[in-house]
């Protein structure tokens, strides 16, 4: 008896937390399928006549363009980050040189720098070189911002590769590049995928830099787009919610199917050698 009572409050608390976590998403999803009238009359009722009008309006706006831009940006930025981070991570892990730990430490500490601090000088730089509203500059900035965490993660992982494997290959006459390509990379498939997923999430959701550096209408990303979208359709909640659903769908899909990669990636930052 005592045990089930004891369990009751635990279940209850978890339930409360889950409801709080899911309620806003529930609102977003149900509102997206309602008409404006239905929404005003019954905002949180799950019973209504569903309509796709909200999505129609949202898609008719510039969602496809924003979507394409975000895809392009995320894909390129994440790919470049992975490449550079893998190379650098291996450099840190394989060789021991003077100042290595200090350099790695400083690099990793850059994770705490507020992006807004970099905004003004980078913006002036972009203006001077006419690179505002170009993807190149934004990709460069994103890569720079993602590298500290990525290098840290990969360096940590590479350190766990048994040195004996490396020795064996080296004695066999392999150059360091071959060792990297044929031994290290194949073994790193899991952390690489994880890192890709985590970084993709970050770029996808990024707002401030995209807001400042991609002002051109044709270059706007999904996040910038929906921020302006909500102010333009501020009177039509279902349309806003439909737009938000569209913006969130890809990420949530990735989360649902690739949950363990997310988890692993974020946890690795805190626990070594996952």
């Amino acid at each position: 008896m005592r045990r089930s009572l004891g369990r009751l409050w635990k279940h209850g608390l978890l339930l409360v937390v889950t409801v709080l976590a899911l309620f806003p998403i529930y609102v977003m999803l149900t509102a997206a399928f309602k008409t404006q009238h239905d929404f005003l009359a019954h905002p949180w009722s799950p019973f209504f006549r569903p309509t796709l009008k909200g999505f129609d309006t949202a898609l008719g706006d510039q969602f496809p363009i924003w979507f394409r831009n975000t895809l392009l940006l995320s894909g390129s930025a994440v790919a470049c980050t992975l490449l550079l981070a893998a190379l650098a991570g291996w450099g840190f892990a394989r060789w021991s040189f003077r100042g290595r730990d200090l350099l790695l430490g400083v690099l990793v500490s850059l994770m705490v720098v507020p992006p807004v601090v970099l905004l003004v000088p980078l913006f002036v730089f972009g203006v001077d070189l006419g690179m505002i509203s170009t993807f190149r500059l934004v990709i460069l900035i994103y890569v720079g911002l993602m590298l500290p965490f990525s290098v840290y993660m990969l360096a940590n992982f590479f350190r766990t590769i048994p040195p004996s494997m490396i020795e064996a290959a080296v004695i066999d006459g392999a150059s360091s590049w071959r060792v990297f390509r044929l031994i290290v990379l194949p073994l790193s498939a899991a952390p690489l995928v994880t890192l890709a997923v985590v970084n993709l999430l970050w770029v996808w959701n990024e707002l401030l830099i995209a807001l400042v550096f991609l002002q051109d209408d044709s270059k706007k990303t999904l996040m910038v787009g929906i921020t302006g979208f909500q102010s333009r359709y501020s009177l039509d909640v279902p349309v806003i919610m439909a737009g938000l659903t569209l913006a969130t769908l890809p990420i949530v899909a990735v989360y649902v199917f690739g949950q363990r990669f997310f988890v692993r990636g974020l946890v690795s930052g805190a626990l070594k050698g996952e």
Partner: protein
Amino acid sequence: MTAAPETVSLPRSPRRRRLPRPGRFEPVLWIAPALAVVVFVFGYSMVELVKTSLRYEAAWTFENFHVTWSDPTFRTALTHNGRLLLAVPVLVASALLVSVLLFEGLLGWRFHRWAVFLPFVLPIPVIGVIFGQLLQFNGLANQLLRAFGLDGLAQDWLGQPRWALWTMTGVIIWKELGFGVILFLARLLSVPADMFEAGRIDGARFFRLHRFITIPQLTNVILFYVVVEAITMVSWVFNYVYVMTNGQGGPGDATQVTELYIYQTAFQYQSPEIAAAAAVSLFGVTLVLIATFFRVQRRAGLAGDA
């Protein structure tokens, strides 16, 4: 020499067989590209930032700092970041509680874990818009409260300066909680079970068990989480404030934060020197956090997987 678990046979290198000795510069080659990008994005920016903050009308001067620090709005922004930091203990305690509950393996714990982590995945602009709608004075949240007769609790969450910052804090906690839960849970799952068994056999019930056995296991992770979230509260809250207050900083100055101040000063009020001075100041504050982070990492590295 032990054979590696997966023997990979390499094709013979066509060159003559020799032990390649990595020159002293080889690691540099590998690190250089990443380093170049980082040096540009961070190094160049910081140098230029400091330069801008020290110049006004082609003269070197500290006046920008004086002007910035004498701006009551800037000081308010800093205090608000400080108030956000107060949320970190709440965040940690909540995450601990939830993760421990999940760890107990109650029925449906996997679903709860999935649900709790979902907010962390959502984009902040999306969260900001939804909560902006929900928390209107006559919005959904208050409608629910009034429906249950809790009229007294139905406040103007975003519109009253008394509540606005706490509301913002609440939304940030809502999103960041999942990260902590996952961190703690992962760590707990990797601890050998017999540690807890010993405690249970001894008759320790929920609070004793967790206070004396569970939490000490988590010390390093807790520390890591505290530092990461402290950094978030100082450096990564722009998105929340910008979306939920239409870039204004809340009723009056109630939700002004340093990042927003810098953004407004640079891009709306056209005063890049003052923005730069504010940014340098903010960076100075985060240097303290950097040093702490550094130390935490060293500790975690030295302590290993205890």
